[in-house]
């Protein structure tokens, strides 16, 4: 168990800088997810923590000790790779025991640890098999088992579930989360799947182009995204964004039937983006009202997606495509005009030029 602190961490490959000064403090026992688009430097950051890549500049501390120049084995971290990296020439038992290779434990203790890990992961019946005779999910569990037996100060996961099918992924997601709750070890988990990050992490770190955009709890990120990128990255379907500008009667939102009351935070910003999550934008049969605290989006229905618990209605508006929810599953027919409403307090405002958040539009009583 240990804290992990990154202070102005930089990584350069030759002349290319791929990580630009990360600052991140991970508390003991915390589960932190690194998310971001492909190539943003998630794996590189994780590999620096593991000691597989040198840190070009900055300070990396594990358990309060500067480990910049420590070999991986002195850092005592365990890592689970995307392609599992379990050895084909060893049985499941030997693979898991491999984590204890340098532990110096007596043989019986090692065997007991392996059995314990196998029991937790449900691998007891497979201990004498070779990896070739395992399914993808079982292989992944062997890799986790090898990491688990060691009592590492931190667990590092690099997209451990991305090679699994959707159902297995859901199952493994819960298993890893349960494991974390049980062992309570500091965990850094890289993923580009925002659902994984939202459901598993205590805190999420959103990265782009080697920089941290935002750090926060899943609900922080969902409720108060710091910029357009995070807003669209977190939550499915992605947040709708409509261009807006100031008019004589308030904020004129493209695709909306009427202006809305301009919040104080929007003052002084000429061009804005108004964000609204599909879950906050509900189709209605009633016509457009004149309430300045309600955003009324009008458009033509282009597609309807019933998902069971909710139905998504795709609208083509003058401000661009928008996804709304059908009220009570009664979706308007494709091709018909439709109107969807959102309370202004559910809206997110962004500066269109800098893409930074201006805060939520507070509702006037």
């Amino acid at each position, binding site marked *: 168990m240990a804290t992990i602190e990154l202070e102005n961490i930089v990584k350069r490959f030759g002349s290319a800088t791929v990580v630009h000064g990360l600052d991140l403090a991970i508390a003991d026992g915390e589960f932190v997810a690194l998310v971001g688009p492909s190539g943003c430097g998630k794996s590189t950051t994780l590999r620096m923590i593991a000691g*597989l890549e040198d840190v070009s500049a900055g300070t990396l501390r594990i358990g309060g000790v500067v480990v910049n120049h420590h070999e991986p*084995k002195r850092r005592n971290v365990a890592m689970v790779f995307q392609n599992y990296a379990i050895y084909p020439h060893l049985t499941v038992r030997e693979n898991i025991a*491999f984590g204890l*290779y*340098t532990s110096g434990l007596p043989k019986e203790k090692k065997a007991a640890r392996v059995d314990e890990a196998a029991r937790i992961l449900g691998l007891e019946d497979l201990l004498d098999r070779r990896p070739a005779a395992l399914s993808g999910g079982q292989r992944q569990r062997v890799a986790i088992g*090898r990491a688990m037996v060691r009592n590492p100060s931190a667990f590092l996961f690099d997209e451990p579930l991305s090679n699994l099918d959707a159902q297995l992924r859901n199952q493994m997601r819960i298993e890893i989360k349960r494991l974390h709750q049980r062992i309570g070890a500091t965990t850094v988990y890289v993923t580009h799947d925002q659902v994984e990050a939202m459901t598993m992490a205590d805190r999420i770190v959103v990265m782009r182009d080697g920089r941290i955009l935002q750090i926060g709890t899943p609900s922080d990120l969902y409720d108060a995204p710091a910029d357009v990128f995070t807003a669209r990255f977190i939550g499915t379907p992605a947040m709708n964004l409509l261009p807006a500008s100031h008019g004589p009667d308030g904020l004129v939102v493209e695709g909306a039937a009427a202006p809305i009351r301009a919040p104080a935070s929007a003052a002084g910003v000429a061009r804005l983006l108004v964000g609204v999550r599909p879950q906050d934008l509900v189709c209605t049969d009633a016509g457009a009202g004149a309430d300045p605290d309600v955003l009324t989006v009008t458009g033509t229905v282009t597609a309807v997606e019933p998902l069971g618990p909710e139905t998504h209605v795709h609208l083509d508006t003058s401000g661009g495509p928008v996804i709304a929810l059908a009220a009570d599953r009664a979706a308007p027919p494709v091709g018909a005009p439709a109107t969807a409403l959102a309370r202004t307090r559910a809206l997110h405002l962004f500066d269109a030029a800098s893409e930074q958040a201006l805060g939520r539009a507070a509702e006037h009583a």
Partner: protein
Amino acid sequence: MARISARTSEPGVVTTAPLPSPTSPEAPPRGWHRLSMSQKQVVWAWGFLALPILFYAGIRFYPTLDAFWLSLTDWNLLRPARFVGLENYARLVSDPQFWQVFNNTFAYLLIGTPTSIVIAFVIAYYLDRVRFMHGLIRALYFLPFLTTAAAMAWVWRWFYQPPPIGAINGFLATFGIPAQPFLRSTEQALPAIMVTAIWAGLGFQIIIFMAGLRAIPGTYYEAARIDGLGELAILRKITLPLLKPTTVFLVVLSSIGFLRIFDQVYNMTTNDPGGPLGSTKPLVLMIYQSAFSSYEMGYAAAQTVVLFSILLVVSLLQLWILRERT
């Protein structure tokens, strides 16, 4: 062949419904179209294999079988072959030269194979990590493999010459070490030739080892480093086991090469093939001399059969020892 028969026994494939003939969809399929997909694959495979197999049988198997027959005759090119039973073999067993040659052949095998495999692995292992002039170094090691044995032998003979011509003796002299006889000595001739043989095969073995090393995914090493293994433990626990198929291949190939060693010996000692008192003579050279110097074809055939048996036993033994345990 094993692959093909294994495929036909796959239940899922065999039961595939035969494709109906495109011309008459109503009529029961006939001829080629009646065959299932896997049966067609087998037909195609055998179609392509037939010619090479016939060729191979004519070129390889027939002479081998013929050698068995010849070894029981006293054929000498002049008289027609006469059946003499095991006389040739009896002569072989009581021929002191044969036992000398037998020992030489096994000396080549037992010293040459392990030495060359170990050297090739060590070079490949370190060359794999070198980025600087990697291609050039690799080419330098591979070059001997492309050079003819005769050309190489000339260079090596010059190396081994007595002073003041010989390069090695010249080098030794600068350190005050007395001149060595090398190829002229009954003790040093065989090791001296062995060195050239090992050197000639090294390039090929290095290339194959490097290909094997490259095929091991890098994450295996990273995972091992995170688990705290040192270089040596990684080598022992991961690299060598995963490299086993490559090693088996090279051990078998190199053993066959050393058991059949001929060019290096023949070219290094052209004036006296087989070295002083036959001290470097391998079995193949003895066969060559029996057949083409003494024209004792029956006797040469008996030696060939012995060589063939040794090759077979050694190869099978190695495959069995190094087999995949599951």
